[in-house]
């Protein structure tokens, strides 16, 4: 009897998960995305971005962002700054090649949506919230990051003059898979 109950429970979970998967919408990242960061100094962008995006406005609980930025693709527009950013004082791209974000929960807000998840940067994982909108098959979001929270760059010294707080502006066009 106990076994029968376990089998029944497993079947319910299986059917429920299958139903959820059927309802979620997978999106493919299209060309033309931009992952920009802005501060007094530096400003720039990451040019390589990949990941899996599952998002359904009608079914937020089934939505999922699992995306990564290639840390070595940083471009500040200045070769010397790029080299410094990739080096051992900042992103250490040889050791931490990717900056990852994995979502936990989604919620609807007055202006759009909000995703809570884990930002894994430079070997430090932190929970963050990213407000975003989804319109015309494009995700647009903006949030701030304090680089010192992720041990990116020193606080003082010559290299420490780089802004601590950076605004990250994201625009990701997608196509339905």
């Amino acid at each position: 009897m106990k076994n029968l109950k376990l089998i029944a429970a497993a079947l319910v979970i299986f059917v429920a998960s299958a139903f959820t998967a059927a309802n979620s919408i997978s999106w493919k990242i299209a060309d033309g995305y931009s992952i920009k960061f802005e501060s007094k100094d530096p400003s720039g962008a990451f040019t390589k971005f990949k990941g899996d995006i599952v998002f359904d406005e009608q079914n937020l609980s089934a939505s999922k962002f699992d995306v990564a930025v290639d840390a070595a693709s940083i471009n500040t527009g200045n070769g010397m700054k790029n080299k410094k950013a990739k080096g051992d004082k900042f992103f250490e791209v040889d050791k931490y090649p990717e900056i990852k974000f994995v979502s936990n929960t989604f919620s609807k807000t007055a202006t759009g949506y909000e995703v809570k998840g884990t930002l894994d940067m430079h070997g430090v994982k932190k929970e963050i919230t990213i407000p975003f909108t989804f319109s015309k098959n494009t995700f647009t979001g903006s949030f701030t990051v304090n680089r010192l929270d992720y041990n990116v760059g020193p606080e003082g010294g010559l290299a420490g003059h780089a802004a601590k707080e950076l605004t990250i502006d994201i625009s990701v066009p997608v196509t339905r898979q």
Partner: protein
Amino acid sequence: MKKILLHGIVSGILAAIAGVIYFIIYQNTLGTAFGKIVNIQSIAGSSVLGTMIIASGYALLFKTGKMKFAGWYNVFVSVASFATIIGPISMSLPLTIENPELFTGLVVPMHFFPALSYFTIAPFFNK
């Protein structure tokens, strides 16, 4: 005086030719696309401007009768040419341009072309 100005113009043209040749070779061998930042007109313009500034200094020395300081002026021109490389090194290019680290390799040598050209042909104008 006329000779000094002619020296400036001729060396400017030669520096411009050298700069344009270097620009074309650099772009083709490294596959860079810095055409939005540097182009033939800007190379030619800045080369002639550079040599004319150098020539103006000589003209000033000549007018004030202080040609004995020409050697020191040459040192100043070389140091000033070296100092100007801080411009391209610290410059931030538009984010649409790839491989900004290769930009300095293109522009820094060009900063020495006017002085190099001016000094190279100087014996022809000092007769």
